[in-house]
């Protein structure tokens, strides 16, 4: 039975069209992912060279004054790229991969973005994730919308009905054939991606794989439900495309507008101004105004003399510290609000499979907002360690040789991910089962 169904399916025009469409766009998307990884590698190499060269160059000019030297020097923290991110590029093209910072106030450097063409950011990346989320459902729809209606309209249904024991089972088998074809293409693309992009077959990859399969099952169930209503082909096509538009375009966009408007973040701009004023206004104040607060955080430097009528590096870096210090609360509020946006989006996404799959792809590929916030947190820690590591030498007016700057290389940050499997799988599985039950109930009347 199945071999016959496969044979007849392979003869349809839609089979060829789908195969060619999915394979071409799928393979293109994998190579776009490759290009993205190459760009990351180049950026990292450039950052490493930049740091080394700039340390050497500045040592040449300013080695006599460590305070001044460290005013110029930039140290790089890089988010270690994961090859799996090429499957779901997510927010990682908007949020920078690395940040080169001086030991001056961090708040003014933390949010600097990298260059990227806004047109590209707007249209989004054509990654494998896009192909899975947008194109696979379309192909499934195209192959299944007339599963029943076509036979009916061509007049072959009556013959079939007379020859098969269970009509519902026959339709189900036709669906299974189409599902396995799409599943095969998915399997091929994922393993092709894993080979070309050198993605290790680890938990994260497994997560993406399972999620993709569930997603295809969801759409198969949805199409099958539409078929089970036994309407004509035009109605099915119209209805399924409308559902696709609602699930992949309208609902996510509505939620996105809602989240952006409800949780506006003016704190971002406030923190930016507060940081500047927190630092700069100290120039016009008594030096004590800076030092009192600085010593509160760093009591170990209390015994340093800060002359009122003379420039000193402890005062200068104290002022810089105050910039961050005074923007700290607002900056924390900003981070909290971004997290809130994320939480709300994720919660709503539990009820919309397309959104859920996109967000969980990004999470599994470490290209989501949470992962970037993790990087920013690590950057703050990195900056703090740098500053504190240099403070003693600067305040003691030590020579620049004493700090061993040649050992300062660009550092990598590695994020850790804990996968909540239940949250990942359950929502979409429940929807699929529910819809499948509805379709079976409908088909009993066939």
């Amino acid at each position, binding site marked *: 039975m199945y071999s016959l169904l496969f044979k007849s399916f392979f003869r349809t025009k839609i089979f060829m069209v789908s195969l060619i469409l999915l394979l071409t766009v799928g393979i293109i998307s994998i190579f776009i992912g490759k290009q993205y990884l190459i760009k990351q590698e180049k950026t990292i190499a450039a950052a490493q060279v930049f740091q080394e060269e700039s340390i050497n160059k500045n040592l040449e000019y300013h080695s006599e004054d460590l305070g001044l030297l460290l005013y110029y020097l930039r140290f790089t923290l890089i988010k270690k790229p994961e090859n799996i991110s090429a499957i779901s590029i*997510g927010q990682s093209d908007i949020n920078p991969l690395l940040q080169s910072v001086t030991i001056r106030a961090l708040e003014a450097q933390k949010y600097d973005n990298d260059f990227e*063409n806004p047109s590209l950011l707007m249209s*989004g990346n054509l990654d494998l994730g896009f192909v899975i989320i947008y194109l696979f459902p379309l192909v499934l729809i195209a192959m299944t919308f007339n599963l029943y209606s076509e036979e009916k309209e061509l007049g072959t249904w009556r013959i079939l009905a007379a020859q098969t024991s269970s009509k519902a089972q026959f339709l189900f088998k036709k669906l299974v054939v189409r599902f396995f074809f799409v599943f095969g293409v998915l399997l091929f693309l994922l393993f092709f991606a894993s080979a070309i992009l050198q993605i290790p077959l680890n938990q994260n990859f497994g997560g993406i794989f399972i999620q993709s399969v569930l997603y295809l099952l969801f759409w198969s169930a949805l199409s099958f439900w539409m078929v089970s209503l036994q309407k004509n082909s*035009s109605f099915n096509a119209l209805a399924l495309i409308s559902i696709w538009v609602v699930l992949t375009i309208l609902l996510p*966009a509505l939620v*996105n507008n809602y989240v*952006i408007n409800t949780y506006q973040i003016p704190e*971002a701009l406030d923190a930016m101004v507060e940081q500047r004023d927190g630092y700069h206004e100290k120039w016009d104040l008594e030096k004590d105004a800076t030092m009192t607060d600085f010593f509160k955080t760093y009591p170990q430097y209390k015994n340093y003399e800060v002359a009122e009528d003379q420039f000193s590096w402890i005062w200068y870096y104290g002022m810089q510290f105050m910039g961050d210090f005074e923007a700290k609360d607002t900056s924390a509020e900003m981070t909290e609000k971004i997290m809130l946006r994320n939480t709300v989006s994720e919660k709503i996404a539990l009820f919309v499979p397309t959104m859920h799959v996109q967000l969980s792809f990004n999470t599994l590929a470490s290209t989501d907002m949470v992962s970037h916030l993790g990087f920013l947190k690590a950057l703050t820690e990195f900056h703090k360690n740098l500053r504190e590591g240099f403070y003693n030498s600067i305040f003691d007016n030590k020579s620049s040789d004493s700090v061993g700057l040649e050992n300062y290389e660009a550092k990598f940050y590695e994020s850790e991910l804990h996968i909540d499997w239940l949250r990942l799988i359950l929502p979409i599985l429940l929807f699929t089962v529910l819809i499948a039950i509805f379709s079976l109930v409908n088909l009993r009347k066939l």
Partner: protein
Amino acid sequence: MRKNVINLLARQLWQDAFRSKVMLIASILILFLLIFSAYSGWENYHDQNLTRDEIQDEVQDSWENNPDKHPHRMAHYGSFALRLKHVLSVFDLGMENFVGNAVFLEAHKQNTVNFSEASMSTGLLRFGEVSLAMLLKVIVPLLLFYLGFATIAQERENGTLKLLIGQGVSRKEIVFGKWLGLWGLSLIFLVAIFLVLLFFVFLESHNSMYFDSLFRYLVLLISYLLFFGVLSAITILVSAFSITAKSALIKLLGIWLLFVIIVPKSLQAMGFYLYPTPSKIEMETAVEHDLMQLGDSHNPDDPHFKALQDSVLLSNNVKDVADLPFNYGGFVMSKGEALSAAVYLKHQTKLYNVYEKQNNLERYSAFVNPYSAIKNLSMAFSGTDFQSFLHFKDKAEAYRFNLAQEMNRLQMELIPNKGKAGPDKISNDYWKQFPPFEYHFLSISDVFKNELISLIALLLWSILAVFGLLRLSTNLKAI
């Protein structure tokens, strides 16, 4: 062609449409989306501009209220430029949420424009946003296809087409009647959305750019009118050349998916693939490298600045820089600023040229895809395209440069050279005299220049549509 026959045919199409469930469901959906996107668009525009205006004023106040100090301190104190939204961004969000909103302007350094909405958003942003323009560009075309796929194909299947022709209605009348009917149907949505938009434009009539906004509004209205005319023609043509209504529907759905969703995104991705761009750190390295070649003001032995010093000393007939009639530090910094700004701009222009190449793939596709034409036109005239952003960025950079150079000038004129007697501070009246940052949107003639390709493409499409309908009028198959 008889006018009353065409009217009759058009009216009949309307009646059929209003009797169908599709129209009912669609109208309710569109109404809901219209209210939602008008509300959220206005709220976003209004709230964001309010916040940004407030901060811009605050920044100006704190600039003016700085006490007397050395002008170079003020150059580092700097200022901020906050990007204001155009009132028409309520209509088309364009790149609004993908470009930065605030930039710190200080001496010696071109900072990036930060805090784009995208940088503070989740991955959902990539699904797109709902705006009034999105309804017109994406949803209404699909709806138009739903409502129009059967027009001619169905009548032929039913045999009513043959009857019509038999009764003496010419093929031309049928084609144009149906086309006008369908086009008219699309105008219901167009008019509804543009009326709402007009209200918002009126709300901002106190704005100095009011007439500019009205003009932009008019261009948008005409562009969408033409776009829907073209879409209606495509629907009629596909319906007429399909054997069954079902196959017409499948073709039209395919066209919609391909031209609205898949092709624009693929072309943008191809552009990215074909023309790689450097990352910021690569460009910064290149800028620094160029600057070292030209003259490094930080290097005391730099030949460029050494020669500069010698020539200044010579022309002023003094031996030591301290004896110059102006502050030498200020002089060197002004030269250094000019040099570094020029080098930075050169590299930035190069980068933007690559962006343009990346974007051109999609831009020129307007000649095969009318959606691309309307997409670019709509963004540009709503003030939310890349060029509008660049215009802001250029103005902010110009302001930064002027600020730094003005402070350098003050230093040269009012601060004595090292070792000479005199104040190392100047009065804060000088800060008050420096004008605040004020942004004016791109002039409409520039927008026309930027969007020439899209305009030509849309006009060509309109001509092609009429031409196609005329051709159909001669060889429409009745059976």
